[in-house]
């Protein structure tokens, strides 16, 4: 393991449609590259620190990592309702091309966290990711995910002193695009035959496992943030351990 260069923030895409990204380069020529598709809605901010630290550890293992915010989320341009899962896939393709330019021809992996798994599966399929797919606590059932997120939304609204009715146009504090649900319905929740390479699943015992997938267990301290509205911290040593296990599963040791 070597000290990786300082993570480099950047903007991708045309100035009128900036996509914010952070490149975690490697000290030596990389042995693999990994594009990290983040989760969405409240889970994006809730897990931001976890995946920033994970990316640092992976870079130290020789894996070049590119993290990015979908357009309409985080530090990228656009209002909240500019985000759609369809445009998120386009953003991932843009980020994937940039990472390939930087990292070269080393094996390419696409990682999706939670709902970002839908984006990752689509991107891995479109780019024919040579390394494979990594899914962190993937969402097996989109309907269940929306139901659970809706229940969390209702609990948050109940805590507002003035009270407020549930709105179909927003979810967990974010305005939704009109075609949010339609795009979700069109994306696969699990890689089908069109997927290239192997699949690595990171999660707790409850994580769904597809045929032929490699599984990496993650401790509760790194998995119980899902479904939580409150912010919290993540233990660095456990993130480092998961990064080492992932690097091993990716064939980078």
């Amino acid at each position: 393991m070597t000290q990786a260069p300082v993570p480099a923030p950047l903007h991708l895409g045309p100035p009128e449609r900036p996509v914010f990204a952070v490149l975690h380069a490697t000290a030596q020529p990389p042995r693999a590259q990994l594009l990290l598709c983040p989760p969405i809605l409240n889970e994006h901010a809730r897990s931001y620190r976890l995946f920033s630290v994970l990316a640092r550890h992976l870079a130290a293992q020789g894996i070049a990592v590119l993290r990015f915010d979908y357009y309409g989320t985080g530090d990228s341009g656009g209002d909240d309702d500019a985000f759609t899962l369809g445009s998120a896939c386009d953003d991932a393709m843009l980020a994937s091309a940039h990472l390939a330019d930087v990292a070269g021809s080393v094996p390419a992996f696409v990682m999706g966290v939670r709902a970002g798994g839908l984006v990752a599966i689509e991107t891995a399929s479109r780019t024919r990711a040579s390394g494979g797919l990594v899914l962190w606590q993937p969402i097996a059932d989109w309907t269940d995910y929306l139901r659970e997120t809706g229940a969390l939304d209702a609990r948050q609204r109940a805590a507002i002193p003035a009270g407020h009715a549930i709105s179909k146009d927003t979810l967990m504090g974010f305005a939704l695009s009109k075609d949010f649900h339609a795009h979700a319905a069109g994306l696969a929740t699990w890689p089908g035959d069109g997927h290239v390479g192997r699949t690595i699943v990171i999660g707790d015992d409850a994580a769904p496992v597809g045929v032929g997938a490699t599984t990496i267990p993650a401790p509760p301290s790194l998995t119980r943030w899902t479904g939580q509205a409150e912010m919290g911290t993540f233990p660095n040593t456990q993130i480092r351990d998961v990064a080492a296990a992932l690097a091993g599963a990716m064939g980078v040791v």
Partner: protein
Amino acid sequence: MEAILPLAAESFGLLSLPSSGSNPIAIVFFNAGFIHRSGPYRLFTRLSRVLAAAGYAVLRFDLPGVGDAPSATDMDEQQAIRDALDRLQAATGCSGFVIGGLCSAADSGWKTALADPRVRGLVMLDGIARNGLWHKYARLRRMLRRSPSTWFKTVRNNVAPAVTDTDLRDWPAAGSERAELQAMLARQVSVLALYTGGTAYFLHPRQFRSTFGGSATRRGVTFEHWPDTDHVFFLDAHRERLISRIETWMRTTFPSPGSHFHASAGAGR
């Protein structure tokens, strides 16, 4: 337009810039607790862009141990803030700053405003306030509105009080906040202190005066109590209201040279 501003200790910030011209006062927002720089539900991403459109350079960045910033081993929070102000000044030419944010960011802003003479304004969202008699009165009034069964629960909780949000905050020693505010006002620092209905420690608007004494009503201090909003402005409408209020406060308190903005022209309370 947004640019990336490199900061010390492997960190960086997002700098929202006006499209033309620039106010000599720049704005800096700190993290609200563990939430990275874009803030709860992107509050500070949106606020930064609105304020940039109004003519201000606005920096949002992660303090040590939050978001993309390395942990606090290399640099403590106040050092990181001082470095960010230095680099913002070098990048924009602005020599005066409005700083602050929500919750712990308000606390960080308070400490920085006391220590750094370049600070000209402080935005405190759910910042420091002491409990006192008005808090007790508001709690009692709330309790009496509920069913008698909750009264016993409240009494039981008071026998063995749990950790409260005030225990988790980085506030000055009780009683020193009055002198500290006086010192800021003597330096012509303007303060926007806004309290939501989402904390357990601020329940009655008169707590503000009982916390800060006569300084609470002095020129330069703007106090607002929004009891209908929660602590993190979950609703889009509440965030829009907050963004509009801060923009109006900035425009009236730190108008751009040559502008003729009056409070009545912007959004009201």
